[in-house]
């Protein structure tokens, strides 16, 4: 659906050249939710803006839905943009228009008749759950409601691709979740391809199928979200993964616990995908003569399965503990002994 080939974007200024995007290659499939994560200045916005021709690559080519966006100009580009919608961090609604009129704007651009527009706008208002606010002005809406208008507006012309530039970064966590759910719902219902950029791993975890990690204009790591969570390669990726799997206090808590236990072993289990739902602990107690104390745990849902870590304390004879740990190892669960008793 989207093909980014050897793309480079260089901004020249008096202070020298900035390689905002540096030799990026990405293929994004139809119906996929693809995330790009990176810190500020990594080049995420520059990259996503090349997908609808708001920026032109210095080198390389960008193809979206069969159109070479990096080549076409004028009317052809404007036509293509009706199929590649975008939503923004700051919503970018027209304050002079009501909700209804804002959603109607792209339809006016596409030359849809007034009667058709009214019908389509009503559908979209229902789809994003804004019934009753049709005639409000943006200034009368909350951030979450504004983004719903942004999404409805982006969907008006039945696009094939939806680009989200930090679409939830201006929202509180709860509102973020509700907007993310809406995006997943739209992805499933309409089969829309979604590309989103963010600096929050939480957003990636919650809705993306695949993720690319960007640093200094390059993609340093890319893969399915679960795979990247399970096995992050780059230091930057590990830091992002820690954002969601390990709460700040985990390390301290575990260190304190180590002080408290004088016998047995403390073990960290890592669950990925299906194994997170298996009754590993139950089996452990049933089959081995050990006591199990759950110390701390966190399980996160991703689009393709769960991911989590669990800290447990095992006590019993040395033999039994060793067998128990071996058993865990055979259950597709990562196991790591934190401290020997």
């Amino acid at each position, binding site marked *: 659906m989207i093909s980014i080939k050897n793309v480079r974007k260089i901004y020249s200024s008096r202070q020298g050249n900035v390689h905002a995007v540096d030799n990026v290659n990405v293929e994004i499939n139809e119906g996929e939710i693809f995330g790009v994560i990176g810190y500020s200045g990594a080049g995420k916005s520059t990259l996503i803006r090349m997908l609808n021709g708001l920026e032109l690559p210095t080198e390389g080519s960008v193809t979206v839905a069969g159109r070479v966006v990096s080549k076409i100009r004028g009317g052809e580009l*404007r036509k293509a*943009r*009706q199929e590649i919608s975008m939503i*923004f961090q700051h919503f*970018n609604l027209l*304050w*002079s228009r009501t909700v209804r009129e804002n959603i109607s704007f792209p339809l006016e*651009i596409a030359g849809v008749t007034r009667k058709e527009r009214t019908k389509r706008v009503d559908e979209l208002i229902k789809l994003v759950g804004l019934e009753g606010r049709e005639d409000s002005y943006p200034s009368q809406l909350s951030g979450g409601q504004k983004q719903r208008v942004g999404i409805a507006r982006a969907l008006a*012309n039945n696009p094939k691709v939806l680009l989200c530039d930090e679409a939830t970064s201006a929202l509180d966590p709860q509102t973020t979740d509700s907007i993310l759910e809406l995006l997943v719902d739209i992805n499933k219902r309409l089969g829309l391809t979604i590309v989103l950029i963010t600096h929050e791993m939480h957003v990636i975890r919650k809705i993306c199928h695949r993720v690319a990690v960007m640093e200094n204009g390059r993609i340093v790591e890319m893969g399915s979200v679960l795979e990247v969570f399970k096995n992050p390669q780059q230091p930057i990726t590990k830091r992002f993964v820690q954002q969601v799997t390990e709460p700040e206090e985990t390390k301290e808590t575990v260190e304190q616990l180590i002080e408290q236990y004088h016998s047995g072993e403390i073990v960290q289990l890592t669950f990925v995908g299906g194994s997170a739902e298996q009754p590993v602990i139950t089996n452990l107690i049933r089959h081995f003569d050990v006591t199990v104390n759950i110390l701390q745990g966190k399980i996160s849902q991703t689009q393709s399965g769960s991911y989590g870590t669990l800290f447990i304390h095992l006590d019993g004879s040395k033999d039994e503990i060793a067998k128990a740990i071996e058993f865990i190892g055979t259950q597709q669960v990562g196991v790591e002994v934190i401290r020997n008793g």
Partner: protein
Amino acid sequence: MDKPYFQDIDWPGMWAATTETLYMTAISVVATFILGLLLGLLLFLTGKDNLWENKPVNTIISAFVNIFRSIPFIILIVLLIPLTTILVGSMIGENAALPALIVGAAPFYARMVEIGLREIDKGVIEAAKSMGASTSTIIFKVLLPESMPALVSGITVTAIALVGYTAMAGVIGAGGLGNLAYLEGYQRSQNDVTLIATIIILIIVFIIQFLGDIITSKIDKR
């Protein structure tokens, strides 16, 4: 000289002068609005990082606007005498004031238009682009509606300045209340005529301000 007050006043003459002032103001406001809007849009669109970015054109319009904005109005009238005699045929009467009024006010308004347009969030223009809007759609459906409060309050200020300019133009023969106040009031020492002419001008100014404020607050949904 001990006459009862207001005895000198020729009311039909006063009314005629008032309609002349209103006529000059109305025509020049409409022309200034159109011309200023065009110039202001051009200034904005040819500016840096904008839709029609064009340094030479921007510099030329900008210089033109700055020059005409800086020339004192009374001197502008004199400078434009040749142009006015070609266009209007004479330097007497209310039409004779129009070229100077418009040339004096349009650049002034053009700057206000440009400032109003610059206040529009760049993101909104970008959103329109990302939906596939053409430049004309962006101008008519984004730029103008989104800057409307600034455009209206700008033309209000300009209209009030124009009322003042018509009075000045009146002194050198262009008719209207300024002309009346000068010829009848000042030169013949009829202070009551000057007073009434002043009051009428103030009333016109207050009405313009009042209308401008009402419209601005009605259309501003921010």
